[in-house]
């Protein structure tokens, strides 16, 4: 059972996966630091916004749909509040994209989308979208030689 379906959250303290002491934050009585608890709060809000979005997309009931949109907006507010609290305490740092990567994207997408399609193949003779965007799905694919970016803000120190 995923932990978000388990109301007994205190059981997570027995896993040892998140019950770490950072040395910079106080830990609660169950071995979880403030940082651990806030990280779980953030993750749960990400899950809830995703689930609520699916609910809205499936809604035919107009009143329920509007209710869900209102709740989703509140969830976004909570997520921002939690993230800002973590960011202020140095628990969630953001690594900016390098100018080289941004420039590469600018070059790749400098022309309107319709013109980019015309440069490749006429409509209907193109490769499936997923095959274009995700080369790892093709056989005999070898990853590019450049080093992939490291998302250090996602890692715990």
């Amino acid at each position, binding site marked *: 059972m995923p932990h*978000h*379906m*388990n*109301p007994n*959250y*205190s059981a997570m303290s027995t896993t040892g996966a998140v019950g770490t002491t950072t040395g910079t*934050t*106080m*830990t*609660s*009585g*169950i071995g*979880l630091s*403030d940082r651990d*608890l*806030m990280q*779980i*709060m953030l993750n*749960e*809000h990400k*899950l*809830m916004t995703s*689930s*609520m979005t*699916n*609910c809205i997309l*499936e*809604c*035919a*009931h*107009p*009143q*329920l749909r509007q*209710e*869900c949109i209102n*709740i989703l907006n*509140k969830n976004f507010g*909570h997520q921002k*509040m*939690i993230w800002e*609290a973590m960011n202020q305490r140095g628990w969630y740092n953001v690594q900016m994209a390098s100018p080289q990567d941004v420039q590469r994207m600018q070059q790749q997408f400098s022309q309107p989308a319709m013109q980019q399609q015309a440069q490749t193949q006429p409509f209907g003779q193109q490769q499936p979208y997923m095959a274009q965007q995700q080369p790892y799905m093709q056989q005999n694919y070898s990853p590019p030689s450049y080093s992939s970016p490291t998302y250090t803000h996602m890692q715990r120190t």
Partner: protein
Amino acid sequence: MTQLSNRELMSLEENVKLEMNMVRFAQSCSHLLTDPQLRAMCQQISQDHNQDYQSLARYFNPRNL
């Protein structure tokens, strides 16, 4: 009153459970956290999700709407 579809009912159930769990978890955090600011924030979040839980749960009984 519009009747709920199967998909709406399933999705509603999932989200009501998530809201219920978040009410409990945020409430627990408000006791477990050591930082007073974070404790107050979690207390507020728990109250907000309790309202959302009640708003969604009403749809299981349309007479309450």
